[in-house]
């Protein structure tokens, strides 16, 4: 148990020493990572393992201790995120081969804190790891571009906001329940909820606030698009696929059990107000993320908003408070990890080769980067939630749960968002890979092998989970059973819905699709043979485009792809001026961040933070 924490740190140290020597870095990196994965694998089922460091300090009557434990849900997240992180880090090493060599130690640290978050058993450890990750990402973002600093500061300020809110929440929780251990405090909170209603709700809300910030849920949906646009592509891959789930995990761990155990009054016989609150935020995130993603021109921003929408789906799954919805949400968390990693890896590959991230400046890359294209294609099919790939099963479960709970508005929002997802996903596909290849990119090549292999692994992963959902669902259901939920262990191939007679067999779906494909291919083969013509040979109403000064660059429809659609939303967006509102918030944050930055520059930051922390502690104690 402890070795998976020690090894990354030791490796990071060793890597930092041998950083110049490629022959050492690669084997060392891979071996230690594979060892960690192996160790994680063996940890499955051994839920009793726990390591605690006891202290004699007491805070508001709660004993302070640092505990790492192999809790089932944590394992579920930790294992899959570790696999994804390894793949991303391998890609990253290839990505940074020429420019910077010092990424390997940073990745080891990231792996360390990643595992730390998921295996933390008490709030204090959790908070420490959380903060470690926050600061690591701040530095990783600023590593990217020159102008990245501003956006990184924006992120930092939000992070700090979330952290302080979490800190207060944790302290409140400790004071209320007398324990900082996650399970114990959850149990305690349910006990004291009715007597200390206001404070309990405040604690839940403060924690939710922090988690929502991390997962970019509705009011805080701005940071991914800002950060991803400037951050280094390899690192934002990690952020968008793994880090954004850090808010999801504690919700599943703590909030859902607590709210599920409470007996709150139900509105319209369907759900209680916390469900509605969470659900509405999720629905708004899903819809707004979708609409905003549709209008982006920068591909990284587009997928940033797509992440926001996906977080919305997960939240909707939680909000349903139905076991199928809950499973679906957790399943979707892993699915989204895989598919977002695949998509962002391809984006990184495209940027690696072309240096462009504005979609309308790209086009036709399928002619030059076929494997990248294929990965991206599978990625967007998965992201759109279309059957033979992995995004479908989890979305389907969430929709099933929403329908069975008669949450009609949420179900409609979900359908709106996932149909809208076709729009932005297809736009990215068409603009980046399809269409005319501009002359500027006539002689680019496919990315090198170190970057191809991670992409291929991701492809296989998406297909595997899509066809055999048991790969994820089996561990998940086992973990949920271990935690105490009343679930059946999932079969390898099929998923169970919440409604009557709604078990679907995804392998069968895949086979049926294959059947359709065979029929279709027969028709294709029956047809007369075809002839490949160059991309310039296109219908132009009979005109010769070159005579009108039209080259491939000027023959691509990709800017303002959904203009009619946008015009529909323009008055609406103007009326509620949501953009303007958040832009002003953004400006305020920028102002704040400038202040904070000023403090840091003068070396007073640490003092200030410390004093704020102390002040809050004292205030907290005083209130209670």
């Amino acid at each position, binding site marked *: 148990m402890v070795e998976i924490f020690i090894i990354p740190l030791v490796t990071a140290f060793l890597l930092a020493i041998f950083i110049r020597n490629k022959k050492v870095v690669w084997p060392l990196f891979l071996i230690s990572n594979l060892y960690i994965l192996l160790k994680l694998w063996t940890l499955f089922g051994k839920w009793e393992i726990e390591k605690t460091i006891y202290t004699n300090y007491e805070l508001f009557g709660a004993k302070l201790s640092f505990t790492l434990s192999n809790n089932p849900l944590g394992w579920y997240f930790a294992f899959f995120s570790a696999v994804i992180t390894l793949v991303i880090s391998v890609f990253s090493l290839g990505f940074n081969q020429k420019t910077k060599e010092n990424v390997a130690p940073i990745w080891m640290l990231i792996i360390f804190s990643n595992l730390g978050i998921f295996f933390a058993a008490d709030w204090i450890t959790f908070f420490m790891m959380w903060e470690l990750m926050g600061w690591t990402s701040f530095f990783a973002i600023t590593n990217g571009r020159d102008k990245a600093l501003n956006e990184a500061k924006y992120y930092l300020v939000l992070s700090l906001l979330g952290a302080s809110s979490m800190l207060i929440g944790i302290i409140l929780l400790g004071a209320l329940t007398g324990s900082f251990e996650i399970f114990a405090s959850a149990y305690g909170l349910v006990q004291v909820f009715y007597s200390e209603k206001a404070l309990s709700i405040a604690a839940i809300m403060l924690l939710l606030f922090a988690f929502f910030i991390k997962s970019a849920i509705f009011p805080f949906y701005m940071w991914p698009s800002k950060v991803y646009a400037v951050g280094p592509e390899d690192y934002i891959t990690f952020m968008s696929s793994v880090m954004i789930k850090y808010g999801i995990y504690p919700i599943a761990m703590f909030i859902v059990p607590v709210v599920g155990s409470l007996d709150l009054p139900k509105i319209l016989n369907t759900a209680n107000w916390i469900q509605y609150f969470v659900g509405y935020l999720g629905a708004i995130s899903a819809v707004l993320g979708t609409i905003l993603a549709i209008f982006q021109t920068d591909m990284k921003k587009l997928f940033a908003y797509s992440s926001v929408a996906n977080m919305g789906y997960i939240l909707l799954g939680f909000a349903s408070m139905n076991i199928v919805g809950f499973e679906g949400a957790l399943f979707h968390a892993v699915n989204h990890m895989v598919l977002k990693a695949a998509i962002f890896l391809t984006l990184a590959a495209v940027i690696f080769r072309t240096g462009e991230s504005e979609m309308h400046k790209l086009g*036709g890359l*399928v*002619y030059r980067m076929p494997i990248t294209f294929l990965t991206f*294609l599978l990625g967007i*099919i998965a992201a759109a939630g*279309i*059957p033979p790939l992995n995004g479908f099963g989890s979305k*389907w479960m969430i*929709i*099933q749960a929403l329908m*069975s709970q*008669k949450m*009609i508005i949420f*179900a*409609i929002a979900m*359908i*709106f968002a996932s149909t809208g997802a*076709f*729009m932005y996903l*297809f736009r990215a596909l*068409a603009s980046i890979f*399809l*269409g005319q290849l501009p002359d500027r990119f006539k002689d680019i090549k496919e990315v090198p092998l170190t970057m191809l292999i991670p992409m291929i692994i991701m492809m296989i992963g998406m297909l595997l989970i899509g066809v055999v959902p048991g790969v994820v669902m089996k561990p998940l259901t086992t973990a949920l059973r271990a935690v105490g939920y009343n679930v059946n262990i999932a079969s390898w191939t099929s998923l169970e*819905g919440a*409604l*009557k*007679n*709604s*078990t*679907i*067999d995804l392998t*069968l*779906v895949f086979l*049926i*699709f294959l*059947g*359709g*494909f065979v*029929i279709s291919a027969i*028709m*294709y083969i*029956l*047809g*007369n*043979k*075809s*002839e*490949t*013509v160059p991309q310039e*040979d*296109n219908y132009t109403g009979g005109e010769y485009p070159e005579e009108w000064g039209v080259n491939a660059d000027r*023959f*691509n*429809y*990709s800017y303002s*792809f*959904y203009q*009619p*659609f946008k*015009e529909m939303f323009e008055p609406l967006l103007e009326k509620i001026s949501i953009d303007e509102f958040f832009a002003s918030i953004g400006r305020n944050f920028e102002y704040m961040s400038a202040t904070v930055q000023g403090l840091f520059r003068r070396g007073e930051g640490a003092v200030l933070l410390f004093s704020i922390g102390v002040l809050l502690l004292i205030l907290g104690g005083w209130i209670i």
Partner: protein
Amino acid sequence: MIEILRVFLFGFFAIFIGLFFMGIGRKIIARIQLRLGPPFYQAFLDVGKLFSRKSITHNFVMDLGMVMSLAGLVATMLFVPIAGHTAIKTSSNLIVIMYLMAIGYLGMAMAVAASGNPNATIGVSRALTMMLGYEVPFFTVMLGLIIINGTSSLELIANSQAGSILNWNMIKFPLGFIAAEIALQAMMGEKPFDAMIAPAEIASGPMVELSGKYLGLAFLTHAVSIFVETAIIVNLFMGGASNIFTFVLKQFEIYLITVIIEAVFPRFKIEQAVKFLWTVPMSIALLQLVLIVF
């Protein structure tokens, strides 16, 4: 083995019926336009001709996409119960059907975007916008039926209407039927919701670069989509059928309504179409949903 045979049987049956409908549809439109019109088997001749011609492709994505588009729709078709039979025993889940259908559209969109013609890409962007337009009201109608039946299995919903005509959802939930009918018009890409094709605007949009067998595959895709979409409506609202002939007859009734509407309406602009779909059928559907749920 028998299952593979059934897959083929169902697949080709859908193609056959779809093309047959298309041929009759053209004839009916011609009669409305005071013309004699082509013979009813014209669609078969067209497809035969298209497949026998040499065709032009821009890259492998075009081939892959066109095959994928037909594959997606045939796969969808295999999920839809026809007179109580499905090709393979499944739960014929409505959401699965809706999503599988998207493979077809995505494949088609990919193929035509790969051709690198802006007309085609505009067509695709319109088609996807339209999809968002009709999917939402259609799903809202479906949601009502799913909630009241407590199942998302198309087969169970169809079976629940067995018995007299008064049990049909069409009679029980007329508002929902109207909304679904309007959404269906858009789903089939018929006027007034055919902005994605719009020859006068974008030179037949997605089809602009398709030739020979690619156009043939697009034809077949359209044929199967007609079959699938009418079959969904028949199952949802007209109680399915006990035998295959009544089922096809009911499908044809639905298709007939679509064709007649097609003949007498011009096309909406895409934003007008989406606005219309989000106001008229959507509010009808929501009203129906509210009536069902509360």
